[in-house]
């Protein structure tokens, strides 16, 4: 073989290797730098706009300075509470079904696949469906129907939580060692009691973090609320009416022409980000310590 050709080839290969290394590092920098920039800018703009008024006051009328997003924070809290009431029990139940009762069956595989696919459906489609189901039709004996309401928004968010909670619960339950289940069965504990008090309880740190993740995800959702909860400039605790929500308010204010509202939007974004960073960090902390404390 031609020695010259070999040397050239080797040099080209080495060059390619170095180029790829350089490109990968460049890609990393190109990705990380703007993302860090987003965070820093967010914190900077948000922090300078954040004050006590933000948490205690409702928005002032157009043109007046000041005001806050207290009603939006409270509205979000109510919506998320309703969403959790709907999403968490059904989601955990689904996870228990997948891990304990249906393991290996075709039905469970179909449910799992459908849940994963459902997780990818755009949230605005959920909003449209809930609108068509609850907001549009006026059913006389169901008081929440026929108009925009916090209730419909909460339902939309709750339905979005179900597939996420279901899958994370299943994953956590599968991590419980089989020996623990056997010990419970061997004592003559009824199956339902064993599943709840032993298996679920052992996996509970992981299940709770899964719920937190789903919670953080729907906390930032805007699209399904645009035509269900609609938003509200005033203080309201009534889920049978339109209600304000933090991400919704951020959206409206960001697109408005008023600087003051822009300021509020940044502050709201910071609050939302802090909540989400806390949730993700907590999840990482719990799962890194091991889902099963002390289990062998």
């Amino acid at each position: 073989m031609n020695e010259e050709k070999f040397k050239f080839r080797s040099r080209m290969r080495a060059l390619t290797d170095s180029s790829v290394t350089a490109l990968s590092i460049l890609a990393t920098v190109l990705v990380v730098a703007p993302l860090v920039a987003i965070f820093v800018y967010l914190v900077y703009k948000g922090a300078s706009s954040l004050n006590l008024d933000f948490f205690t006051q409702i928005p002032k009328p157009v043109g007046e300075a000041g005001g806050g997003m207290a009603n939006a924070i409270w509205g979000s809290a109510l919506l998320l509470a309703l969403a959790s009431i709907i999403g968490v029990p059904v989601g955990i139940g689904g996870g228990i079904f997948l891990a304990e009762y249906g393991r290996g069956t075709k039905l469970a595989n179909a449910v799992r696949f459908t849940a994963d696919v459902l997780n990818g459906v755009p949230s605005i489609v959920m909003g449209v469906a809930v609108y068509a189901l609850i907001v549009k039709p006026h059913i006389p004996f169901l008081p929440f129907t026929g108009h925009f309401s916090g209730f419909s928004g909460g339902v939309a968010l709750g339905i979005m939580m179900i597939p996420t909670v279901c899958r994370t619960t299943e994953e956590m339950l599968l991590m419980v060692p089989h020996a623990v289940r056997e010990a419970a069965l061997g004592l003559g504990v009824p199956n339902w009691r064993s599943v709840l008090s032993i298996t679920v309880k052992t996996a509970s740190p992981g299940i709770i973090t899964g719920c937190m993740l789903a919670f953080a995800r729907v906390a930032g959702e805007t699209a399904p609320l645009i035509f269900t909860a609609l938003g509200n400039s005033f203080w309201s605790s009534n889920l049978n009416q339109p209600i304000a929500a933090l991400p919704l308010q951020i959206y409206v204010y960001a697109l408005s022409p008023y600087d003051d509202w822009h300021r509020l939007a940044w502050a709201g974004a910071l609050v939302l980000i802090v909540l989400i960073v806390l949730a993700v960090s907590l999840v990482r902390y719990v799962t890194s310590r091991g889902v099963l404390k002390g289990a062998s």
Partner: protein
Amino acid sequence: MGVGIEVTNLNAWYGTNHTLQDINLNIPANHATALIGPSGCGKSTFVRCLNRMHETNPIARVTGTVRIGDLDIYVDAKPVEIRRRVGMVFQRPNPFPTMSIYDNVASGLKLNGYSNRRGLDEIVEKSLKNSALWDEVKDDLRKKSGASLSGGQQQRLCIARALAVDPEVLLMDEPASALDPVSTSKIEDLIFQLKSQYTIVIVTHNMQQAARVAEKTGFFLNGRMVEFDSTHKIFTNPSDKRTEDYITGRFG
């Protein structure tokens, strides 16, 4: 007091694998009976048929009769009820990781609805004393979790947990195989003390252990029970050549 176990024509399958073939034997009450045999011979499957744990596997199947006392366990009662009367200690200690020592021992009762606090205290103390663990843990009952004990202690905890529901039969599937020699001898002493109160069936890989602890021994091979007789006879003058080959170490 313990009860005797009468097994007639027991056959067990895992899917298409015919794991146990035509087992017949009578396990005497208030004695310790050892089951020995090479790996995969079916002795674990056999004891799991005695408390209906075998059928927790969806592809498992059983035919034949097992009478514990006067109860045909596959006909006269549901698995849950059987398992309250036939306790089991597993090969690897498996205390409940989220529970304290106290709650572990009391779990069989609490999870079945027993709520008398003082009664529970007494039962927990008695069970821990019976499994020779009381002195080591009596100050930390509610503070320490079950999983924070050493291997040998964990296994004694599992024994205490099994004893707390006052079973008539105690099944032990290689209870000391994962333990060090000191813990092993402690557990063997335990079995010695317990067999006057319960009927004990112990599966073991360790022939010396069977010899030390049990009055009767059964030798399993390839899913069949080859010989079942007093321990003394099995180890000094076995009737079947295969038994003799096993105990002299020719195979297994």
